[in-house]
């Protein structure tokens, strides 16, 4: 089980800020494929990965990073702080 979080327009497309996901995906990219296969709203949110960023346990990471040991995955658009 892994916590998956969504922010900004990713959250809006998915329709919720976080959920617990049962997965055996090896990498972030594998997890994305599993989610996209579920429902159209995931398809819509993950249509263009180049427009997305991912954080693993609150640190920026890559889509090919392994998920083993990770408790929290977050998907969001490029940040606009400052």
């Amino acid at each position, binding site marked *: 089980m892994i916590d998956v*979080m969504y*922010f*900004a*327009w990713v*959250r809006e497309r998915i329709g919720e800020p976080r959920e617990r996901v049962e997965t055996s995906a090896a990498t972030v990219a594998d997890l994305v494929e599993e989610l996209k296969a579920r429902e159209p709203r995931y398809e819509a949110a993950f249509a263009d990965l180049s427009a997305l960023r991912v*954080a693993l346990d*609150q*640190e*920026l990471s890559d889509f090919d990073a392994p998920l083993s040991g990770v408790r929290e995955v*977050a998907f*969001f*658009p*490029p*940040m*606009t*702080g*400052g």
Partner: protein
Amino acid sequence: MDIRVQDDGFSLGDELERFGKGSHDIGAVVSFTGVVRDTGGLGRMEIEHYPGMTERAISMIAKEAVDRWSLADCLVIHRYGTLAPGDQIMMVATASRHRVAAFEAAEFLMDYLKSRAPFWKKEFGPDGAEWVAAKDEDEDALTRW
């Protein structure tokens, strides 16, 4: 080093009156304040953030600035929630022995906060709401450090 992520507003004047007061051998203090631009059309701005990661990311950026420029002190305040035109969004302040270090560290902090701190801005105007898109130039700005 003082990092605050908050819903509430802050007083730039009060913060700068306090800033660096406990430190020694300060020759230069630089501050940057970001303000919601009053362009006429904007009704409000909502800032979303990633609680937990936000504090971690800002602390890492601030710590790197302190180490790299030997800062005597460093302050970052960033708000989230609903803001109106003219409201202060955030501020950074740096205190150093010399002016070049204080300026560079403040610009470094701003460049990294723009693209590496997990905030997202949504603008509400007369034609509806829109997420502010990240600019390529903001990402490019990181290459100079």
